[in-house]
């Protein structure tokens, strides 16, 4: 019963053992800390880098070109914005060389709000990242999906951006999820095996469970709740909130289908299409700022393909278009979708009649 951060760590351990991962690195990624969220604790290839995000991304490109298999971390996505040119290079190298070079690298980075992170530990990155061609982009909302998407990311011969929703890193898996293949069912046993002790950990070594291969194909969404009246498409932090809202609204007779997109690029249009063709109403939810937002892309595509089939205007619920998320509770709550605003948006969409 791993948390998402444990699942990621186990995926990286599996990657080191079986998939040729050579370097898991970034600021405070190696010993003694093993990542500010413990995501790389105890990994044998984990190491600390200089405090230089441009160096981290550039080095990953170089490692990928140099026959290595890197998983590079940007400590918080809030600090990735001086590397956009390098992310673009990682994404255009194959195209610019007409296929000569591939760049098999993974970048992982915590994203989003939910920890009172204030202006610089709350950023979302889905909008800018989906505007950078040549990458694959994933964001899990359950530990099992995190494990399966990380293995898929490592196996992929292209650059893959693995976004870790900060707010969900320590949350337990949903009831319907099976165990990660190989993990012990008892969370205390697992903790004992793979979490470093408090205090001095210089002599500590993890005992990894006998993990197995499990891949979530990049580009495949997941229907987390079936429903007939409207479709909700989300991912990351807002996904469990959408699910909760949908479940609660079932009592009011609102039957919503909830799709966890999981992969932002490529994304599972087949799944969205099938659902919208069934429900004729769609709500896109994410927490990035709402202007030039990836949900606007999905909405545009819905308009392109289903305009005449829709029974209500498709909607986007996203973050306020503001320079930051404020520290105080009330400010964070007012800036990004929460259970209440999601519930209200679903209700409104359900009630809309042409």
């Amino acid at each position, binding site marked *: 019963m791993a948390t998402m951060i444990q699942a990621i760590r186990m995926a990286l351990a599996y990657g080191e053992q079986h998939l040729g991962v050579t370097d898991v690195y970034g*600021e405070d990624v190696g010993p003694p800390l093993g990542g500010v969220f413990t995501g790389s604790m105890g990994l044998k290839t984990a190491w600390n880098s*200089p*405090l*230089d995000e441009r160096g981290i991304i550039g080095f990953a490109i170089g490692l990928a070109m140099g026959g290595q298999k890197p998983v590079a971390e940007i400590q918080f996505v809030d600090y990735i914005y001086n590397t956009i040119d390098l992310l673009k290079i990682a994404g255009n190298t194959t195209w610019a060389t007409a296929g000569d070079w591939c760049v098999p690298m993974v970048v992982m980075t915590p994203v989003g709000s939910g920890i*009172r992170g204030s202006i610089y530990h709350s950023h979302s990155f889905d909008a800018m990242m989906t505007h950078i061609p040549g990458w694959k982009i994933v964001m899990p909302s359950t530990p099992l999906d995190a494990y399966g998407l990380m293995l898929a990311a490592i196996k992929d011969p292209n650059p893959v951006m693995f976004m870790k929703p900060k707010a969900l890193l320590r949350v337990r898996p949903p009831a319907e999820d099976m165990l990660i293949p190989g993990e012990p069912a008892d969370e205390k046993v697992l903790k004992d095996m793979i979490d470093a002790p408090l205090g001095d950990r210089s002599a500590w070594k993890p005992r990894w469970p006998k993990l197995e291969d499990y891949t979530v194909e990049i580009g495949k969404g997941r229907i987390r709740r079936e429903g007939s009246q409207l479709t909700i498409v989300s991912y990351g932090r807002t996904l469990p909130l959408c699910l909760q809202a949908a479940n609660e609204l079932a009592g009011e007779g609102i039957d919503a289908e909830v799709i966890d997109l999981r992969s932002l690029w490529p994304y599972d249009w087949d799944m969205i299409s099938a659902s919208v063709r069934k429900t004729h109403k769609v709500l896109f939810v994410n927490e990035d700022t709402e202007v030039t937002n990836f949900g606007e892309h999905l909405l545009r595509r819905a308009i392109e393909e289903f305009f005449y089939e829709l029974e209500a205007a498709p909607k986007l619920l996203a973050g306020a278009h*503001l320079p930051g998320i404020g*520290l*105080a509770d*009330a400010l964070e709550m007012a800036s990004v979708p929460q259970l209440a605003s999601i519930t209200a948006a679903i209700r409104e969409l359900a009630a809309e009649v042409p």
Partner: protein
Amino acid sequence: MSKPHLVGSKSSFTLAPELLVKMHDLMVRTRSLEERLIKMYKQNDGFFWIGGPGEEAFNIPLGLLLNKGQGPKFDYFHGHYRSMGVLLTLGAEPIDALRQMKNTATDPFSAGRNFCGHASIKKWNVAPISSPIEVQYSIAPGTALGNKRAGDGLTVVTGGDAGTAEGDFATCLVWSSRPGNELPILIVVTNNKWGISTASDTQHGDRVIADRGKAFGIKTMVINGNDPQESYLKIKEAMDYIRKEKKPILMEARVSRLYGHSSASGANFVTNEEDPLKTFEERLEAAGILSKEQMKKIWEQYNEQMLADAQKVRNEPQPAPESIWDHVYCGQKGKPGRYV
């Protein structure tokens, strides 16, 4: 606050006793504030703490030597999240730091938006302190050019050792030393030998960071930032040179990090680093400038003040949700339409 009595005796000091006493007072005030902030964090009166305990012996002299005022005739200060000592010395009120810690609506630095220690005081040319490491080094040369055009003001920029790995540090060196267009800027690195959990000697081939200035013809200094007298004298020497020559200096100050990186690493007092305030107090006592008793009193006064202030802040209002729309643009308040 009652003036402590000055005992004029032999001492290891060359600075005037009045100045030493003033520095001590400000150092205690700063430390007391930081310790109160840590307590607030631990008592759930704030989400996150980061600050500068261990850097007082450098920050207070720096604050004393800045020529305070608004606009390019005066000095600019581009600090970072360990700079509260500089700001208190300039005249900032501790209670305002507590307000930011508690993210109240009354927080004058950010109205409850930013982390503690992320101040901004335009009226004294204190540039906004923001979280991203090192960007201040790309920004500071701009105010230095303003200084150069306006008179004898200068710009000071500070940041940590690990952060010098960012390209912005090099940018600062390049832009400050353009031949014929050198800038009046004091480029400071406060080297505590750590970046969060990462020891600097595992990452930095540049064992003396200040040496990076040499290739640019920038005058460099390495000082003991744990010694307030040395800091005062060296910063003064540097500032005199900068004001006169209109050229940069790169100064590396070796300092301590006394409560770990931040609340994320527990914010507990570490015992294996020099406490510059303790050292200073021992020297002040040995020199007969302040007695244990006197110093104890100063501590008590400040600790009491901080506690009282913290209690006051607890009752101050939190920001209103709709305040998020204010100040997207210069002078703007409220939400005029669908978007600001």
